[in-house]
């Protein structure tokens, strides 16, 4: 972990900023962005692992929480553009295009960074709380839960695709200029964002590890393995599930909020059911119930994706599809399980 911290906080930013561009050790913006993106994905995978690996709840809607966090941050970034848009208005370009004269009510306060941060935490958190409150109360579980989370993200995707919803429709938010006054085009800002993502990833990992190794985590595992029995032992399983569900959603929201300023775009495509299912495969590839494995899985799958889509774009879906099949059939514990087995044998 110390190695990771040293790389992300010191080495990479230094290699980007202090080493001249023609030096072989120089890290280009592209790789900086890739690293930042992967760390966001890793956080999402951690969130997924927490509920799927430890509590046995497979969510097919985690992309929604990720996107909501992203949109919350995106609203602030849109306000930061100011009047530098195409039309020179204080409104975002797409609102000018829709002939809107002022911000709709739910944009109130979006120009304050502190409020944006609050929204990043609250919007996914509240939605997850309300949804989880009802779903767990009705004891919806297993496949049913997965299917309705998928319906949820699908419904939100349709909602955000509408131009009248006020979030830019198809195109979403893009063309961001600065964050907290720092230009997003500056290498320094980029490196700082990447390092912040790394910091949050570390914190998330520590928090998740704390949760799963505490008594709370043991109860979660008990719920995963035998929910009825846990209930009859006197635990209110609903509260446990609700807490970990909301925590996981908030984690996704944070990841989304860190993702948007680095990538520079957020659109409803992030909410498509396919994206959410992909999150599950990152976790499965890395190894369910291992935390660090899940985070690594996100990096490995997305690394493969970046490489494939550049080298053999038409083979990426074959590879991803095969990955789904092979991992579930032959590697139920993921890559982490593979390492663990080798260690057991030695």
């Amino acid at each position, binding site marked *: 972990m110390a190695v990771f911290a040293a790389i992300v906080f010191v080495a990479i930013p230094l290699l980007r900023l202090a080493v001249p561009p023609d030096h072989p050790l120089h890290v280009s913006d592209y790789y900086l962005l890739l690293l930042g993106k992967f760390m966001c994905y890793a956080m999402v995978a951690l969130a997924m692992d927490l509920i799927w690996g430890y509590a046995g709840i*497979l969510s097919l809607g985690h992309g929604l929480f990720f996107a909501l966090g992203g949109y919350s941050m995106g609203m602030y970034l849109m306000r930061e553009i100011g009047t530098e848009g195409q039309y020179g208005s204080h409104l975002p370009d797409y609102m000018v295009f829709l002939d809107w004269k002022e911000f709709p009510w739910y944009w109130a306060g979006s120009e304050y960074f502190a409020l944006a941060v609050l929204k990043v935490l609250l919007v996914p958190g509240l939605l997850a709380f309300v949804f989880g409150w009802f779903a767990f109360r009705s004891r919806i579980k297993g496949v049913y839960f*997965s299917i309705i989370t998928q319906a949820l993200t699908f419904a939100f995707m*349709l*909602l955000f695709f509408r131009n009248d919803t006020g979030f830019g429709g198809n195109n979403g938010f893009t063309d961001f200029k600065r964050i907290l006054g720092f230009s997003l085009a500056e290498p320094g800002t980029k490196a700082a964002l990447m390092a912040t993502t790394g910091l949050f990833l570390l914190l998330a990992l520590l928090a998740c590890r704390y949760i799963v190794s505490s008594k709370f985590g043991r109860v979660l595992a008990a719920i995963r393995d035998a929910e009825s029995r846990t209930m009859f032992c006197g635990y209110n399983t609903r509260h446990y599930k609700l807490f970990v569900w909301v925590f996981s959603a908030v984690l996704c929201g944070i990841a989304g909020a860190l993702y948007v300023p680095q990538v520079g775009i957020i659109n409803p495509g992030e909410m498509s059911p*396919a994206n959410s*299912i992909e999150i599950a*495969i990152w976790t499965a590839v890395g190894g369910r119930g291992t935390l660090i494995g899940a985070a690594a899985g996100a990096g490995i799958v997305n690394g493969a994706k970046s490489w494939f889509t550049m080298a053999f774009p*038409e083979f990426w879906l074959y590879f991803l599809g095969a990955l*789904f099949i092979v991992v*579930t059939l032959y590697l139920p514990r993921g890559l982490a399980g593979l390492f663990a087995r080798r260690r057991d044998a030695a």
Partner: protein
Amino acid sequence: MTRNGCWKTILALLCFLGVMPAAHALDPAAVRQLAAEDGDAKLAAINRLVTEGDVAAIPLFQAMQDDALQIFIGRVVIVAEDGTKDAVTGEVLDAPPDQLESIIVNNRIRGALDSAIASLRLAAPDPRERLAAATAVAADAGEEMLPLIERALAKETDPGVKALLVQAGAAIALKSPEAARRLQAVQLLAQSENPQTKLMLAALLEKNAEGGFAEPDAGVREAAQKAISEIDSRALVPQVLGTLFYGLSLGSVLLLAALGLAITFGLMGIINMAHGEMLMIGAYTTYMVQWLFRNYFPSAFDAYVIVAVPAAFLVAALVGIAIERSVIRHLYGRPLETLLTTWGISLILIQLVRTIFGAQNVEVENPAWMSGGFSLGGDVVLPYNRVMIVFFAAFVVFLVWLFLSRTRLGLYVRAVTQNRQMADCMGIPTPRVDWMTFGLGSGIAGLGGVALSQIGNVGPDLGQSYIVDSFMVVVLGGVGQLAGTVIAAIGLGEVNKFLEPFTGAVLGKIFVLAFIILFIQKRPQGLFAMKGRTADS
């Protein structure tokens, strides 16, 4: 109407009455005048020929439009591919191209020719041609057409053409400066069945730039308001019937998409995320069969759909069986893993189709007997392909019911569904039942694909757009219940279509999804829960 205009009309009418000419008796002087240098003289000639009302002038005008009306040594001739003819007598002339002189036809004259052709066609002997002409006139007619319309109206016997002509006349009268005539026109328009009428009347009630109404007279405005509500109330019944039908049609599509899933998910408990791709395979099989027919049996092309039905069933069933044997059978009892694996399969299938057929949509054409539709009155039309799909869905449901309740394999399926171990002990070959049932479910999805190919685009992503909907139908209907699936599908279709006018298609769909999510909270087992002690598995 001005005094002058009045005289013109009377003169024109006198002309008609006096000169009801026989065929090929166009006024030679007027025809010659068409070739005049001066544009106004040309227009006058066109008007004269129109007022004569002879259908024989239509080819002449048409030729003028196409620049085929030319001058040959002082005679006006029509130049066609099969030779040059005299425009009046029809006599064939031997005219070398270098001696032909073209007539200049500018845009003003072209416009006049258009309306001249339309008004002459109103007098054509073929009622279909008259209907087409009347439709064109009703859509856009100027003041100068009024006498023609009135004359045509006097002779018209076909009710459809007559109604259109009345409407066209009223539309022109609507622009009249006299309020009384406008009022009369509005009252006439209230009887019209044409959807455009409402727009025309609504335009009267709009405010113009100066803040006044487009229609200055309050009495006329009131009449227009009344006429609009009259038209609306008349259109209500066909509209409700139409919405009911479209809901039923959407429900049938959902049913065909979800029925296979109701078997694989509902009965066997397999979460098949590749189910949508079975629909896609069915649709592509239809495309292939269509291609075969087009290239090898073009004379029997209309029958291709009938061949596509069993073909799509077979292909999709075989793919389904292959998936079950190779992958799914290792995962029974692990639903979440099945979900991920079948998702992987669906990605591979999509990419496979993309590699073979390309990423673009392919074109599947309706056979002749499935294109077109019949009108419910007003502007509500039921397309035949959608009507057929409703019947097809009913037919497929009947077959599935027959299979489940009347065949031995159906009995086995139900037995395995209820209690796998007990069924095994009774000697039922459960693995065989598994793959056959999965094949059946996939095959039915293939049938759904045939239906989808007839109403929408066929592309590699076809299945993806139906997967969420299909699961919603099955979950709403209740797992393991055929009747529940049917009711859920039709119900969702109807609710969607009735919400659409109020909320728009997208928001309507969001409401429906939200409703389902809430509904499942209330009744996790769906509309029709299976009774018994299978609650906690």
